[in-house]
């Protein structure tokens, strides 16, 4: 199991350098997932476009989504840009918690989606969809699953916390240190986001 010190040093490497290395970022995400909700041996992959400053971190598209330790699945896809002199920036992300292994599952439980340049202007750039039903009648003509609730783009750490605290997954780390590790990693990420914003404004 990754320790707090390992994650600390990796977080520093990823978020405190002027140009974060995507391979380190991928390794950090895999450590967080290994520590908490991923099934044994199941990891995300990194793909970098040759001679370009973009890439993605995801479960392989031709494979099943990431297997979790409760037998359910997490579809995970995150694209980034990382140019010379510019910080690593997430351009698109999709996190979908689902019951089956189908790539196009109708049995999803929730889905967070973020697109820095939304394809459809009726979709908020970051939104949440929940697969369920309204308790009240005549609320809207739409199904609940088709409503996109605007949100702030969630961090991977907050997604993991939701799976554990909201959906009852058990963390792989039995020591309880995982919560401190997620907190540390998320705080480092938030500081990085704030610094990036200042970099963009100034």
């Amino acid at each position, binding site marked *: 199991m990754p320790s707090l010190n390992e994650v600390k040093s990796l977080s520093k490497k990823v978020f405190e350098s002027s140009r974060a290395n995507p*391979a380190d970022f*991928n*390794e950090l995400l*895999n450590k967080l997932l290994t520590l908490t909700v991923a099934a044994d*041996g*199941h*990891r*995300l*992959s*990194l*793909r*970098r*476009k*040759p*001679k*370009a400053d*973009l*890439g*993605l971190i*995801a479960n*392989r*598209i*031709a*494979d*099943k989504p990431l*297997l979790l330790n409760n037998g359910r699945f997490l579809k995970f*896809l995150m*694209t980034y840009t990382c140019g010379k002199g510019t910080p690593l920036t997430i351009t*698109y992300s*999709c996190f979908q918690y689902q019951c089956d*292994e189908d*790539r*196009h599952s109708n049995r999803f439980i929730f889905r967070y*989606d973020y697109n820095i340049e939304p*394809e*459809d202007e009726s*979709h908020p750039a970051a939104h949440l969809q929940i697969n369920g039903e309204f308790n009240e009648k005549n609320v809207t003509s739409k199904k609940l699953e088709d409503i996109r609730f605007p949100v702030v783009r969630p961090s991977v750490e907050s997604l993991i916390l939701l799976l554990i605290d909201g959906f009852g997954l058990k963390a792989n780390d039995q020591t309880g240190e995982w919560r401190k590790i997620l907190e540390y990693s998320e705080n480092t990420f938030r500081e990085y986001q704030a610094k990036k914003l200042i970099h963009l404004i100034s």
Partner: protein
Amino acid sequence: MKVLDKKDANAAELTSDEVRQDVIQVAQQDYKMTVPQFLKAVDSGKLDRSNYAVRELLVWIETLPDDDPVFVERNGGQCPA
């Protein structure tokens, strides 16, 4: 799922060959198309690029090199590089 062996798990970074194989397989399985046909269908609006599954395949294809064979047919047989 292709279970990752220790070597693959440690490698973690996908090559262009691996990505090309994956996108060819998914385009065929999900759309009964080749990758160039899929790209043409998106360009012409026959496939909706705001659809999750379409977008997912597109972002993977976009990580292939600009001169990759899958792009040649889309560019009228000309290699863009």
